[in-house]
């Protein structure tokens, strides 16, 4: 194995989408970059997700955050448009739009309200589709659908290829990625970052350290309480081409997702009946039978004739949420030259742009688009009273209360 150097300019911790995207952008700036990854490239949430690129995931009804989120995710979409060419890497990116469908009257009301607010806040692409329109576009859907939100520049991407595309190009630019090399702690002295110590005890000195470990970030930066959140997904047999879109919906209060077909024809879905657990059990990557049954049931509930579709694999992964559902991107408070990019629950809409923003911060000290709503200061040393047992649904209720 390649020898790990004793010192470098920049250390990135975590080789998920965020870490690899950051490493790529910094390597383009001719910085000396080392990435340390506990397991393997894309072994965390970045290799376990649905690949949906949904710009305003969730039903954000706050005009202020919508506006600022849009600036960032629109930039992300701009980068994605030319990324295959830039990276010279097949990403299976399909910009085919996404749907948020209502399966009951109440949901329909909520979607209509969300669309109205998001449109007013500046999302000029967002559209409301009536039952007839959505069934015309996606005739596979259940007749029980009430209507949907549609955004045409959303889409889907292969998350493995996206992460590996960045990693490959970062290494081409002489960044080095050390897999199976967990970081034990970030070393700082007098409010200044000095480097990292690996689990093996080895110290590496560095001018800059970036924590991109998402669901694991609080182990290294405990002052910001980022919550791990486990999610389950299943993949079906490859089937003949269907008119399907990346979708979000609520079934019995659970936030579920289904994707468009992968290049080989499989469909991915998840989120229904994911069990509520204690915080430390959100890192467990096994899947319970009821969760597989739940994820399979999505096909029966959302589609007309896919109830017999066969599930061929299931898995779970751990993403992260913060106290206001927006990620933490930026300089870490009270420690010079330490940065954090963590707290992502819909990383595909952020990965490429986060690399660019962090690189701008590190190299030029400021970002080209405002990121104050993502400021790590929001939660610095703030205790959050998370529910003891939780899943996505429990957290949604928790956020509705606070």
């Amino acid at each position, binding site marked *: 194995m390649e020898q790990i150097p004793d010192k470098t300019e920049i250390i990135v911790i975590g080789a998920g989408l965020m870490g690899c995207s950051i490493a790529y952008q910094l390597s383009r700036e001719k910085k000396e970059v080392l990435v340390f990854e506990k397991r393997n490239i894309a072994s965390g949430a970045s290799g376990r997700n649905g690949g949906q690129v949904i710009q305003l995931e969730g039903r954000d009804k706050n005009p202020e955050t919508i506006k600022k989120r849009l600036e960032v995710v629109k930039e992300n979409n701009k980068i994605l448009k030319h990324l295959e060419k830039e990276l010279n890497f097949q990403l299976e990116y399909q910009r085919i739009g996404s749907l948020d469908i209502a399966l009951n009257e109440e949901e329909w009301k909520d979607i209509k309200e969300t669309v109205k607010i998001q449109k007013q806040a500046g999302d000029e692409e967002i559209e409301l589709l009536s039952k007839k329109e959505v069934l015309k576009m996606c005739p596979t859907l259940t007749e029980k659908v009430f209507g949907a939100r549609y955004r045409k520049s959303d889409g889907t991407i292969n998350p493995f290829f996206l992460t590996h595309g960045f990693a490959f190009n970062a290494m081409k630019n002489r960044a080095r990625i050390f897999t199976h090399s967990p970081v034990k702690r970030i070393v700082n002295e007098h409010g200044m970052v000095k480097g990292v110590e690996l689990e093996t005890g080895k110290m590496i000195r560095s001018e800059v350290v970036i924590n991109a470990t998402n669901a694991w970030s609080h182990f290294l930066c405990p002052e910001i309480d980022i919550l791990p959140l486990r999610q389950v997904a299943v993949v079906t047999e490859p089937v*003949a081409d269907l008119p399907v879109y990346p979708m979000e919906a609520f079934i019995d209060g659970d936030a579920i997702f289904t994707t468009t077909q992968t290049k080989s024809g499989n469909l991915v879905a998840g989120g229904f009946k994911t069990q509520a657990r204690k915080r430390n059990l959100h890192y467990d990557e096994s899947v319970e039978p009821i969760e597989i049954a739940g994820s399979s049931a999505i096909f029966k509930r959302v589609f*007309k004739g896919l109830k017999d579709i066969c599930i061929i694999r299931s898995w779970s992964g751990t993403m992260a949420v913060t106290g206001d559902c927006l990620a933490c991107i930026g300089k870490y408070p009270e420690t010079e030259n330490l940065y954090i990019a963590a707290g992502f629950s819909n990383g595909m809409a952020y990965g490429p742009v986060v690399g660019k923003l962090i690189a701008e911060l590190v190299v030029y000290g400021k970002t080209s688009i405002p990121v104050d709503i993502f400021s790590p200061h929001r939660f610095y040393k703030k205790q959050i009273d998370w529910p003891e047992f939780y899943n996505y649904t429990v957290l949604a209720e928790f956020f509705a209360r606070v």
Partner: protein
Amino acid sequence: MKKNDLRIYDHPILGKLPEKKRVSIYFNGRKLIAYEGEMIAAALYANGIRALRKTEKFKQTRGIFCAIGRCTDCVMTVGGIPNIRTCVTPVRNGMKVESQKGRGRWKKKNW
């Protein structure tokens, strides 16, 4: 029962095949005799048909492999729905069975 096919009508251990109701199925439009309770793939085999589908990439011929619904080598388009494992799907009178190329195609309205 008709005897000029590949069914075992008199098994040395299991004994005689009980009389069963005759049904017809259509293989690529061709009418075939099958018996109630038989699996589609078994009925096709009995009628001498062993090539059930072509693979997506190399267009190779596939037929029954595991015969217990695990391997998906026997999938065909049945009643307009692709990917039906014919070794574990019983015949029905008038059923339309078609050999499948690759992932096949959905006939409209079967979703």
